[in-house]
């Protein structure tokens, strides 16, 4: 009964999104405030019904109602409760429902909290938001109904893919979706602004918090996925340039560009039509990401049951959203009023450089991801584009960007003083060069490239500190005055400093792991010892351990690191009887400077246990850097500017005086 109600409320949600779109657009066109309010209410009701539908599916999962096909195919009575819940989005239908739920959430948030938006703009934003909702609800109802029943109901389910039964991956989809779908708001604002033919500083001020929120969650979601790959797949890496990873990286890159260019619109009323274009592209890439990983074009853990109808449907949505958005842009953008001018060397110029590098990098990633698919369609040859391609294109584009990030915030708006900025960075440059020489000297193989990575990180971190010091007038003013100024730095500014600093930390981690990873494969008998760098790893044997729905073969090791106290580590192979599948649980001992990482392979009586031991230098810095970035984004979001005193739309939109 509850399941049928869920299906019914989902249909109601569809009806209300049609209502929302109709009232939104006509209300804005006819300037009827009652219609506009109706759109607002429809958005809230649509969210309510989508939530009910999602709750109904969750209920079916929690109570293990196997008469529902979706539950039967993806759940099992023996599964722990948390994975019964995460099973809701661990499959195609449920994940689409989650997608729509997040979309409705954002629509409702615009309706509820957009009180200070001009009413017609809000109505149009809600209208566009509803159109996206209509497309995806149609998709779910027509091709991917999660509430379908099977008669007779099977006794037990088929279980969730064991790889997905992991706390990190239980959270990965919802967080990533808040990121992906969050960019729909920027998209809707862009389309609404194009329809209105008006974009100004206050527009950017409304768009920015949504973009920030989406960006922070996307960053966190990608990191969570990457962290999972690190400890669960047991391949000893954190980023493989796999197409499904690239699918999330592309919207991140363009979204990061959008985050920066919207600042320029807000502060300087410039780069306006470019920002609109970025809003459209970011959401387009979010949709492409969804399409790539969900349609079965790529084979991966994200690919659920493939069905050609679904692929074609998503492709149609993609063409409508992207084609429609870009066509509207081509038609309306030339009518937008030009923004204020700036010199090539200025804060605006810096952001422009950032944007160009980020979008170009996104383009190279796009090419590397899509090229094999296109080539196969054209001449049938099957190729794969792997890490070497991305290392040779992405990294050279990112290196100058990172170098520029240190300088950009030191430049003034409109006309910057590059010589002044560089002279402020003297101390930073000196430190970075000393570190470069030190690393290149001591680090052995690949040392020049590794040293270059560390150099960039130090340069960037120094740039961030220099900018902070300048802001508080350190050494120019009295310590008291500096302290007072430090306390008065707005949170959005702290957010920027933190995010940039996090990037520096991340680069150190990524560099360390790329160049100094050590690994060893050994065959070990009980009580044998293997050495890697200054770790002595002793194998104590294997034991069987029973989990809630799996049986683990656990290998136990004792580790002696230099003269420190001994500690023990375990690495497992888990066997899930329901799906006849094995997973790897790496043993990881994390430290500030390196992780010791152990994976076990086959074990036979005669030869012993195959053990793969990695020494992962600085890998913790990767996650820490990303965490700092996410924290910076969220901190910036709490800036009072975004909460109170959002100004009324500017009355005078005429050109500002030439100088």
């Amino acid at each position, binding site marked *: 009964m509850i399941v049928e109600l869920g299906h019914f409320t989902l249909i109601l949600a569809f009806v209300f999104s049609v209502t929302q779109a109709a009232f939104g657009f006509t209300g804005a066109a006819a300037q009827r405030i009652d219609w506009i309010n109706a759109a607002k209410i429809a958005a809230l009701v649509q969210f309510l019904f989508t939530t009910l539908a999602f709750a109904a599916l969750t209920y079916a999962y929690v109570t293990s109602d196997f008469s529902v096909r979706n539950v039967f195919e993806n759940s099992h009575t023996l599964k722990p409760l948390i994975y019964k819940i995460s099973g809701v989005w661990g499959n195609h239908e449920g994940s689409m429902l989650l997608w729509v739920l997040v979309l409705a959430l954002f629509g409702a948030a615009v309706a509820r909290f957009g009180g200070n938006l001009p009413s017609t703009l809000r109505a149009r934003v809600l209208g566009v938001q509803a159109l996206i909702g209509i497309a995806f609800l149609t998709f779910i109802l027509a091709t991917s109904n999660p509430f379908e029943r099977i008669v007779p109901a099977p006794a037990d389910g088929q279980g969730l*893919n*064991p*790889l997905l039964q992991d706390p990190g991956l239980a959270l990965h989809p919802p967080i990533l979706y808040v990121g992906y779908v969050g960019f729909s708001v920027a998209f809707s604002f862009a389309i609404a602004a194009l329809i209105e033919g008006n974009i100004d500083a206050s527009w950017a001020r409304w768009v920015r918090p949504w973009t920030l929120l989406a960006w922070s969650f996307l960053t966190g979601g990608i990191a969570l*996925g990457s962290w999972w*790959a690190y400890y669960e*797949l*047991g391949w000893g890496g954190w980023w*493989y340039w*796999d197409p*499904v*990873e690239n699918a999330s990286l592309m919207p991140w890159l363009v979204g990061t560009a959008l985050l920066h260019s919207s600042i320029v619109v807000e502060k300087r009323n410039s780069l306006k039509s470019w920002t609109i274009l970025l809003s459209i592209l970011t959401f387009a890439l979010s949709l492409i990401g969804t399409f790539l990983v969900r349609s*079965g074009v790529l*084979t*991966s*853990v994200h*690919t659920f*049951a*493939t069905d050609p109808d679904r692929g074609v449907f998503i492709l149609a949505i993609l063409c409508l959203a992207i084609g429609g958005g870009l066509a509207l842009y081509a038609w309306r953008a030339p009518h937008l009023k*030009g923004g204020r*001018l*700036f010199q*090539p060397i200025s804060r605006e*110029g810096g952001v*422009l450089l950032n944007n160009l*590098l980020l979008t*170009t990098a996104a*383009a*190279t990633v796009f*090419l*590397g991801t899509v*090229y094999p698919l296109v080539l196969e369609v054209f001449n049938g040859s*099957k*190729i*794969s*584009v*792997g890490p*070497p*391609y991305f290392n*040779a*294109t992405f990294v*050279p*584009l990112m290196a100058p960007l990172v170098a520029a990030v240190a300088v950009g915030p030191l430049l003034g708006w409109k006309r910057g003083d590059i010589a002044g900025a560089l002279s402020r960075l003297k101390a930073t440059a000196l430190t970075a060069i000393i570190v470069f020489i030190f690393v290149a000297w001591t680090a052995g193989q690949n040392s020049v490239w590794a040293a270059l990575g560390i150099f960039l990180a130090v340069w960037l971190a120094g740039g961030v500190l220099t900018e902070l010091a300048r802001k508080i007038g350190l050494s120019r003013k009295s310590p008291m005055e500096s302290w007072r100024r430090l306390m008065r730095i707005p949170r959005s500014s702290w957010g920027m400093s933190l995010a940039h600093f996090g990037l520096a930390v991340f680069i150190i981690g990524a560099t360390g792991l790329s160049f100094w990873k050590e690994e060893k*494969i*050994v*065959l070990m008998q009980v009580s044998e010892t293997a050495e890697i760098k200054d770790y002595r790893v002793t194998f104590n044997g294997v034991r069987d351990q029973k989990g809630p729905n799996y049986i683990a073969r656990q290998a136990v090791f004792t580790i002696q690191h230099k003269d420190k106290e001994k500690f023990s580590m375990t690495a497992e*192979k888990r066997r899930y009887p329901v*799906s*006849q*599948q*094995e*997973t*790897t649980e790496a043993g990881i001992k994390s430290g500030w400077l390196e992780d010791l990482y152990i*994976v076990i*392979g086959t074990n*036979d009586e005669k*030869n012993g246990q*195959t053990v*793969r031991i990695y020494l992962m230098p600085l890998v913790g810095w990767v996650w820490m850097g990303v965490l700092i970035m996410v924290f910076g984004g969220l901190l910036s979001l709490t800036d009072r500017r975004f909460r109170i005193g959002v100004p009324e739309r500017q009355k005078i939109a005429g*050109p500002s005086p*030439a100088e």
Partner: protein
Amino acid sequence: MTDTLALKRTRRQKSQRFYTLLLGLTMLGLATALVLNALEDSIVFFYSPSDLRARNISPEQRIRVGGLVELGSWKTAESKTAHEFTVTDGKNKINAIFNGILPDLFREGQGVIAEGRLKNERLFIAEEVLAKHDEKYMPREVADALKKSGHWNENAGSDGNPKETK
């Protein structure tokens, strides 16, 4: 007065556009150069054992080989941490050797993709073994290769439906 100001503004706007365009084009050129350079030597082609027989592939080229792991062919090599197995597409086969830990889904009679280089016509040194399965336990490339060699069985491995890898 306003006229000259407006003129000045237009001129500045033009020069700003010019700089932006110049920067954009430089970036595009740079990216094109990087992409062309990278594509040339980092693309990895996929071949079935029959393709390997038909073509002459240099041992220097990094390639992917895919097919089924022949039943009864998987054994531990002399170095003990290495694995030997035979990849077959039903018509032709090639021996492969891999030093490392095989993915959890590696099994005899099931699909596999190995990346590495040919040592000679009969031996492939795998540097990486991928288990890229969908729920049918079969990598798409391998399925296509089997279809081509006429050894595709629609129901092969479709019982049980685990999925692996990202």
